[in-house]
């Protein structure tokens, strides 16, 4: 359980650790890549609202 790992955590120390990680290039890249991937998934969900039935039929090569 996640709660067991954060019990009595030193929040001031945590803030420093977050700051160091976020300033490192790997931390920044990790977040930016994850946001970009999430945005791409959502974009696919948004695209699903637009429908071209004619194109659908053409895609099946019988």
């Amino acid at each position: 359980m996640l709660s067991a790992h954060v019990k009595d955590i030193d929040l001031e120390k945590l803030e420093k650790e977050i700051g160091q990680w976020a300033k490192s290039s790997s931390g920044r890249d990790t977040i930016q890549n994850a946001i970009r991937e999430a945005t791409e998934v959502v974009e696919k969900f948004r695209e699903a609202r637009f429908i071209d039935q004619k194109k659908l039929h053409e895609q099946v090569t019988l």
Partner: protein
Amino acid sequence: MNPSFEVTKFSGEFFSKELPKINSISKPLVIYRNILRYLYGYLEHLKCETIVIEYDYIDRDYLEGYAGYYARCFSGYERKCIRLHFFKIKFSSEEFQSLISHGNFPLTRGILQYAYLGFIVLRPLPYTIIGRTCLSPYPLEERRYFPVKRSRKVSLFGIELKIDTLPFQEQDRVVAACATSALWTVFQKTGELFNHHMPSPMEITKTATLHSPIETRTFPNREGLSHFHMVQAMQNVYLEPIRININPLENKNCERLLKANSYAYLQAHIPLIMTFYLYDPSDDKSFLKELHGVAITGFCIDKDISHSEPFGFNLKAYRMSKIYVHDDQVGPFVRMEYDKKTISIGKTKNIYSLSTQWQTKDEKDFCRGMPNILLVPLYHKIRIPFEAIFEKVQIFNILIKSLYNIILSSKKMKAKDIKNVLNKLEWDIYLTTVNEFKENIFSLGYTNFRGEILLSKMPKFIWRATLIDGKSTIMDLIFDATDIEQGDLHLTTIEYDKELANTIRAATKVSSFIDQFYNSPASDIVEWFKNNK
């Protein structure tokens, strides 16, 4: 004088031999129909033992079709129907007669209610005899969900019975085709939810084609309705439908789209319409000829939490292993499984498909269904679609997972173990109403947030995103479903685990970290954590 009722034993023989004879007009071929086989199997699964046959039953939906079409046929079609009631206990005709005449034991209303499995109206037609059908869904067994069922009162000669279900009826191919039947089923629930008129199949077909006629005659309705007509039918009862493309040829995410959207709206008790192409593996040329429409009425959730990448997104809806649909050609609560089997059509390989219970032409297997369109019939005030909330929650999930990655790494935990801990985090996103949400909070008993939440003002429709760690709830994110998409949709957060929430709060103080989320769609959630201590 004809009897008012008969009591008979539930058996295969009844469905194959006696049922066609009940109705003087039904043709013998009726017994070979897939729908009768399905209904027999379904009732057998529900452990049905006894049938009460109620004669001279007047059914409103059939009556409208009768008045609009059958009454003007040269052949004298009957006006009245027959209703079959199903019970999971054994009793005799004498015992039932005794209950009606004298109220005598051993049969009582309470016993009948306990054993009641629902009813089927038999239309006096030659072939398409299955009219309004209200049967109990499959037992829930902590994995099946039928959030769209509603309680219906049934009066059987003055004996009040109740059944929780969503009505079903097959198309008669005269006043209704599959799309009309699916719409009729959906309106049975949305009518109750959003207080609109519940039109009969005849009315649905007539009004859907009023402003944009179909290319051939409306009645008899053989061609069915197009997606455009289905949208029109929904707008005729003042609903605002949204249309989602779930065709695998267009969108590789079709399975996730279908699962996430159907779960999110079904949990708000809103049934959806799905159209799909039927593919018969024994007849390759059948594809694209048959487009079929069904109403989605339930789902089954697997117990295993799916595993994703460390920063991936676990959605409860992705654990869906099957949906249940009212398929007017097969029956109510028909299973369609996400069984990962693909189909190949011509040169196009590995096309995503779902299982169906349509028999193939050679009767050796079942057809496959390639999803096409999902239609969600919404009340006009529900304006924020699922994907808007999905986007916010996905990005907030990255914040949470990044944060706990830092915490667990600082404790020298191995990367593999960190992944295992983070993979247990799962989001449950669905639409709900303020009343249902507050009733749920009230039912939790004493909590430190109870009073504040119950007394707070909220819009009628809200999106709820719950973060769960195994079996413990960590937090609820509440969003306004009635606002505009560019607005700040996040209303409040309920912190079930204060220590976990405080770590997020600490992270909001670190600008190098939090600034990356301020310029994202999740900024309103981050802002809330920063401002609420």
